[in-house]
């Protein structure tokens, strides 16, 4: 029996939970590290979140959990590639934990865990997101730590 595919990525970022939450939910920020994609929502449970890329809505997902600044979860279903429309929505969860055992007390650091799951065994989207998330999350970390996101060549 093959286990259902699940992607988990952990990264540590020198920032506060509040700043990380802002970066995840403010479209002015997401556009900088998410390949130009604006994530637009009021971020309440049950609301929609639109992913807007070059003026096209490429996702119209649903907020499942929203506990600022600790936990955010939404469905994930890309709309802009016809060959993927047959797949059921998957689910992304962001968990933010603050470190309290730092040697320098004035320093702030958080652990971000991104879990992307609920894929079918033969999902075509799964390999795409497995490659995509390290790009997005690396760029997010660089943005929060240096003020400038990594801009990738596609």
């Amino acid at each position: 029996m093959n286990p259902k595919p699940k992607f988990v990525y952990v990264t540590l970022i020198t920032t506060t939970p509040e700043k990380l939450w802002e970066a995840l939910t403010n479209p002015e920020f997401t556009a900088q590290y998410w390949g130009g994609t604006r994530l637009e929502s009021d971020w309440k449970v049950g609301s929609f979140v639109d992913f807007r890329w070059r003026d096209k809505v490429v996702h119209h997902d649903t907020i499942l959990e929203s506990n600022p600044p600790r936990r955010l979860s939404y469905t994930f279903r890309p709309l802009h590639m016809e060959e993927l429309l047959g797949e059921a929505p998957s689910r992304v969860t962001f968990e933010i934990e603050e470190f309290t055992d730092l040697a320098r007390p004035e320093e702030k650091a958080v652990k971000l865990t991104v879990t992307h799951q609920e894929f079918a065994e033969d999902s075509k989207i799964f390999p795409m997101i497995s490659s995509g998330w390290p790009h997005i999350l690396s760029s997010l970390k660089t943005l929060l730590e240096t003020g400038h996101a990594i801009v990738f060549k596609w």
Partner: protein
Amino acid sequence: MKTKPTYVYVTYIATTPAALWKALTTTDLISQYWLGRMNISSWKKGSILESRDPDGELEWHGKILESKRPNRLVYTFDVVGRKEGPSRVAFDIEKHSAKVLKLTVTHDKFPDRSKIFQGIQLGWPKILSNLKSLLETGQAITFASKD
């Protein structure tokens, strides 16, 4: 079909392959991002690698299997005082653009039901996040506890 456990971590870092290779193979730099540990080796193929904790205790050791500056570094990972045999760590460095590279760390060849495999799940993100911060900002996170 049982597959042996494999851990893979990909990160993109705004630095050059030469700067990353230096950070991976210079003991003073390693201790800044590797949770206070000192990894000591000549880094030549066939040579020994020792990893000592902040108190100087040997925690793990290995042998350099491949050393192809600045693109691939591979060594065995043998934890002191454990019955499990050695696993294998590989760093693959690919240039993405003039200012950005892709680092892929693969930790594999664990025995079935490895306990060490569970332990490295949080260790690697801590070390590699810190390595990225050190190269991009000049500073890594310092934890108060040894772990």
